[in-house]
């Protein structure tokens, strides 16, 4: 048993599929708890590799989960809670980097490329379409002949 506890303590190991949120952490108010879960899913465990504090088993993640819940109980808004954690651990803990400064490149890369690619594609299609003869509507005779053929 002791060995297992030790193993659990050492389990910042990547991909440790062990318990994250413990029953004793859960807030009584379901609405507040849901907020806490939503916030902690977007906060990264500072010592793990790519796990949110909601998923992580590391002791520091537990501390952070408790901090998040304390701040919520103290009446902070979601943004205030996140700012509080970021002020202590830096922007590293944010899974969704703030769209400011250099991060604008990250956020605008997709829409920007879509715009550029869209203009390019549009120009290409227009160029390819230049030789296409516009569809001529069938005359009344042709329409009736077509109907005859289809119904046969």
């Amino acid at each position, binding site marked *: 048993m002791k*060995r*297992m506890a030790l*193993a*659990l303590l*050492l*389990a910042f*190991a*990547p*991909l*440790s*599929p*062990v*318990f*994250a*949120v*413990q*029953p*004793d952490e*859960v807030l009584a108010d379901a609405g507040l708890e849901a907020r806490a879960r939503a916030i902690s*899913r*977007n906060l*990264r465990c500072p010592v*793990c*590799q*790519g*796990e*949110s504090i909601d*998923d992580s088993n590391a002791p520091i993640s537990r501390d952070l989960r408790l901090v998040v819940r304390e701040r919520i109980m103290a009446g902070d808004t979601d943004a205030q809670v996140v700012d509080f954690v970021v002020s202590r651990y*830096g*922007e*590293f*803990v*944010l*899974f*969704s*980097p703030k769209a400011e*400064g*250099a*991060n604008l*490149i*990250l*956020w605008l*890369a*997709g829409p920007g*490329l*879509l715009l550029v*690619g*869209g203009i390019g*594609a549009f120009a*290409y*299609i*227009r160029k*390819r*379409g*230049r*030789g*296409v003869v516009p*569809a001529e509507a069938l005359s009344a005779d042709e329409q009736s002949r077509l109907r005859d053929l*289809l119904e046969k």
Partner: protein
Amino acid sequence: MIVEFGHFALVLALAVAVVQTVVPMWGAYRRNAALMAVAEPAAMIQFVLIAASFAALTYAFVTSDFSLVLVVQNSHTLKPMLYKISGVWGNHEGSLLLWALILALFGACAAWFGDNLPPTLKARVIAVQGSIGVAFLMFMLFTSNPFLRLAVPPLDGLDLNPLLQDPGLAFHPPFLYLGYVGLSMAFSFAVAALIEGRVDAAWGRWVRPWTLAAWIFLTIGIALGSWWAYYELGWGGFWFWDPVENASFMPWLLAIALLHSAIVVEKRESLKAWTILLAIMAFGFSLIGTFIVRSGVITSVHSFANDPERGVFILMILAVFMGGALTLFAFRAGSMEAKGLFAMVSRESALVANNLLLSVAAFVVFIGTIWPLLAELFFGRTLSVGEPFFNAAFSPFAVALAVILPIGAMMPWKRGEIMRGFRPLIPAMLLAFAAGSLVWAMQTGRTALGPVGVALGIWVVLGAVVDLWSRTGRGPVAGRFARLGRLPRADWGKATAHAGMGITMFAVCAMLAWKTEDIRIVQEGGTYALGPYEVTLTSVDEVRGPNYFSTMATMEVRRDGAMVATLTPEKRMYPVQGMPTTEAAIDYGFWRDIYLVIGDPQVGGGYAVRSYIEPFANWLWAGCLIMAFGGLLSLTDRRYRVAAGASRRAGAVPAE
């Protein structure tokens, strides 16, 4: 002895790969049939040699030959046989050997099935494929040799990472690699065509089955990985936007784009340069994926089996192949004249839109994956990019794709009318909209994700049905049903794959939107409510497995007093690696999975228990399988089989 034999075979394979690269390429340049003919036996010999090497390594694992460093580090005598075998590729060196084996397999397949190719193109394709083999065999022999011996072998090994001791993960890497490496064929065809300076409808037709096969494997591989994460990691999540997952997702997206643009090359001889570029980039992203996974440059939850020093070598491979191919592309792209003209409203335009959305989506995943690296290198900021970013930045593309899919799929080639194409789809659209609204009205205070998923799913699936039905022409219903069975398999494949896509999208939305979670302490014998079910923790026992100790809970799930399932979630401890794993117990169902996880014993008695109801979970993987099956149907279409048969008949007569 057998190990030395395997080692020697690997070195010999490198020599053969060099011959396979140089001689046919030179022969194609000099139009020398004898030199070009070297390609075929060389490709086959290379494959046989690497297969022998792989067999030797497998033998070492199966017999627990602890004089090999690799076996010591990744195996154990007590490990079940399945994992002794899967342990061969459950590590860096072995997985590279599998990579090289599959690469050589595709090269050999090009030699076997390539009889209908023009001789120079065939020689060049096999030569380019050989050059990739040279790069990876060198990488393996110089930095990651699986056959290194130990002077003093230990009595027993260190065991495989217990998370990898799982049937799902045993088969995940081979499928993924078949997909990754399969894209090398598209790359080889693209580079060979660039050297030839000719891309025509026939080229589009040759490259498509290879891309399709690679995409099918990639789809299955990704689905297996996602399923593994779902049941093994114990969070009930199925996709984590982890760099390693993204590494397989980017080539998948580009492979879809490539499949669709190659149709335009095949049917309409347009989009040639773009298709070549996509073929190069799709394999480029496979290499980037390999780089990300194998170098550990972007630390991720998949960080087993990484080594920063090897990253440089892979980066060099990436630079040589991408740099070379793109330079070639820059010189030759202008010479590829498009033939087919098409109007603004046409199938071609719809496929251009499909390609635009897929490529930009792949790019978004790419920039999100490498942004932490770039931000640290250039701006000195350490930051993270995770699920919230990808959900926000990627999802719009997926939604846009699903919205245009049914309309584009029914659009006629060359010139269409938006209203005429849209009319047969109006019932599907109304139904999708109505179902989405109904779900929206029924659920209160939840995200819009659920209704959007329902609407998109119905729209795409019904769109596929309408598409197939419209292919049967006009006339009495009975006649159309009869014609349904005689439609080309490519039509069935298209509709099936599209429907699978719709099902997958719906399931993703449903799981994200409607999951039920419960975390609590339960005493032995205690009962709690989980949605409409009552769950009882009957007992908790200590059990011994072949190479682990287990704390196994027995839990009974009832609904209105009637027994639904008895589940045994476990918490395992693998003493050799000193690592605990969680074995969730899942009652699989058509509408929902009940997902139970047992946690630590609590100070005040009882156990922490996590329970989930995962709605439509199996639809997700079923959707992926349906997609892959659609690809398979398309792959067995008559026009590929006929072409293969014709070439065999032609081959019976001595050609030279």
